[in-house]
């Protein structure tokens, strides 16, 4: 017997799919902004901050980079309530993704900061800038420029990784697929469509990030 594809069976659930898609996009957008912000602060602290802070950030980075994202998510969602912090699925998903991207982008941005020629920093210092001014006005932008492709890749990894938030019943794209195939038993079609949606999202995100990069870092 040959399996007959029945994509039409998904149609009654189109609104579930659209809501899942919107959720994934918004969650990715929000956690990208906050995650890169955490990464920028973390990388700055690691390179320009006092030693104790640098070590603290280092410990955070190692902790996150050496544990599975799913466990981090479960810890935030199921573990933190024990410490008195009760979060909705969406809040937990956002926080876990921020922490995760924050750690990876700390390392990525740090590499960019460390690639700054020593002389350029000395030029800023010689112009009577504070260390913070040197970091902010002299170091960060070229650092971002250098690591932009790596950062863009990491953002996409996090976006695709966001599919595991369905495991705490956050209603994302993967949750939509789980939901639909449990109703119409069209697992192949459901996951196929959702996989395609992720693919499109990733391609779109890459294009947007590339365009943003050439906008932020103009070079003739």
């Amino acid at each position, binding site marked *: 017997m040959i399996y007959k594809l029945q994509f039409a069976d998904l149609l009654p659930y189109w609104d579930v799919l659209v809501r899942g898609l919107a959720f994934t996009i918004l969650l990715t957008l929000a956690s990208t902004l906050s995650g890169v912000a955490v990464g920028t602060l973390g990388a700055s602290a690691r390179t320009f901050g006092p030693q104790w802070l640098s070590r603290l950030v280092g410990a955070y980075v190692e902790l996150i980079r050496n544990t599975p994202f799913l466990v981090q998510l479960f810890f935030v969602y199921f573990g933190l309530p024990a410490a008195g912090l009760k979060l909705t699925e969406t809040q937990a998903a956002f926080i876990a993704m921020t922490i995760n991207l924050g750690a990876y982008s700390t390392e990525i941005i740090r590499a960019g900061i460390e690639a700054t020629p020593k002389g*350029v920093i*000395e*030029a800023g210092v*010689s*112009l009577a800038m504070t260390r913070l001014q040197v970091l902010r006005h002299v170091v960060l932008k070229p650092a971002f*420029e250098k690591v932009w492709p790596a950062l863009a890749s990491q953002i996409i990894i996090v976006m695709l990784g966001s599919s595991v938030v369905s495991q705490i019943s956050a209603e994302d794209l993967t949750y939509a697929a789980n939901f639909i195939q449990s109703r119409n038993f069209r697992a192949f079609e459901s996951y196929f469509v959702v996989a395609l949606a992720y693919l499109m999202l990733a391609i779109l995100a890459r294009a947007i990030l590339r365009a943003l990069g050439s906008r932020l870092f103009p070079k*003739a």
Partner: protein
Amino acid sequence: MPLVSIVDVRKSFGSNEVLKGVSLPVERGDVVAIVGRSGSGKSTLLRCINGLESHDSGTITVDGLEVGGAATDMRVLRRQVGMIFQQFNLFPHLTALGNVMLAPRIVLKMGEREARDIALDMLAKVGLADKRDNYPSQLSGGQQQRVAIARALAMRPMALLCDEITSALDPELINEVLRVVETLASEGMTLMLVTHEMRFARDVGTKLVFMHQGRVHEEGPPKALFAAPQTLELQQFIGASRA
């Protein structure tokens, strides 16, 4: 009182003592050319003046402020002494104008317009008004170095420290930078130049300092020193650089 006063300054990197008690007064309007072999401590001396390196003992004062002194805000001191580097060290993400404007904006807290006017003046002074919108990567080495000079001048310093500013340049680009420095000298800017341009040191300098093994080995008016060096080491050094 000298504008820059260096008294018995010592500095070691690990066990290597680079400055072994250097004393040097620099008056306002002096153009001090510091020459010597590599490793003689010239650049280190210059870098101690604005605190890029900290000296181990002795005192350096700039306009009465003691470098590294407990009561000294180094940022106030650094506003008084501009520095120009061998490798230009322009900010790569900013245009020529942006490079010159940045410190007046964020350090001197000037308004956008005022900073821009000053920056354009300074770029015009180094002959690069038409390159204001170019990024460093679009400029030749000589042009980059002139932007770096404009950037330092925009802070209205009392003195400029020039650390081998032509050493990274192709020979045909050296003169455009030296001409700018010569103009500054003729306008009365106090200059301390670590340089290998012997002719420039002789013609533009008001004082020649020959450093040797971490000490000021010989100093005096450049023309007299070039004509009749008193020490064997300076004789050899001048001879070697002529060859």
